[in-house]
């Protein structure tokens, strides 16, 4: 499925992680860590993503999920788990 934005679509946590993996992949060369991506995966330590590209990932997430990520939320976005929590919260706010 390829859609420009996932606004108003109901998504499971697994679907969010799968989408997140698509977003992250161009910015990491750690193919093995990418394949086994899970809650605990750390963007910097495990995926060796450059922090200048973390900004791109945050912008890609905003575009893809049609949400706005404030600085305090962005501050926590160092792991898959923290990022999925933020995406779920922001999507809920939008739906509400």
């Amino acid at each position: 499925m390829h859609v420009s934005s996932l606004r108003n679509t109901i998504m499971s946590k697994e679907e969010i992680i799968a989408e997140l993996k698509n977003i992250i992949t161009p910015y990491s060369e750690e193919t093995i860590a990418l394949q086994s991506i899970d809650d605990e995966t750390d963007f910097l330590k495990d995926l060796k993503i450059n922090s200048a590209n973390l900004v791109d990932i945050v912008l890609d997430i905003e575009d893809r999920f049609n949400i706005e990520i404030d600085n305090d939320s962005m501050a926590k976005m160092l792991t898959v788990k923290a990022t999925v929590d933020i995406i779920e919260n922001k999507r809920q706010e939008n739906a509400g």
Partner: protein
Amino acid sequence: MLGNDIVDLKFAKLHYNWRRKGYLNKIFSARELELINSSKSEHTMVWLLWSMKEAAYKCYNRLTSERLFNPQAFECALFSSCNNSASGVVKRNGQSFFTKTEINQNYVHTLAYSGTWMLDHLSVQHLKNNAAYSVDFTHSTNCSLQKDRNHLPEVINKNTQQKHMASISHDGQYLCIAFLKV
């Protein structure tokens, strides 16, 4: 406390698109954006301020053990800047980190430190960014690299066994190791 950060300017041009819509606003305050807009070389100013934030973050992380990704919370001010160097301060939560930056056509390299006295006691090794950098470092300094108990880098002098706080940064083809000689 000590931190360093290097940006490979050519690599940055290819891999970090700061002209992307929304990019700079995620990183910089209104005052910092003003510095970028009024600069003769926006590309250099973007990476100068970025490297100041990154180097200061490494100091802050060493001090507090807190991990975060919030570049805007590290506010930069420049004391002076010219074509080949800059000095300034980065503030976070009332904490100040001083910075000194070397600028040339290839890279921007910033040292951040918590006390001005440290500047005279810092040693910087520029190496190629490759898997064998640790071996290269030992060859050129007679010191070896290891992790301290907090998993942060430290340098150990092979002759004296003295340990020194260290910071490692790499980007593109460059790798830089800074350590405090006291």
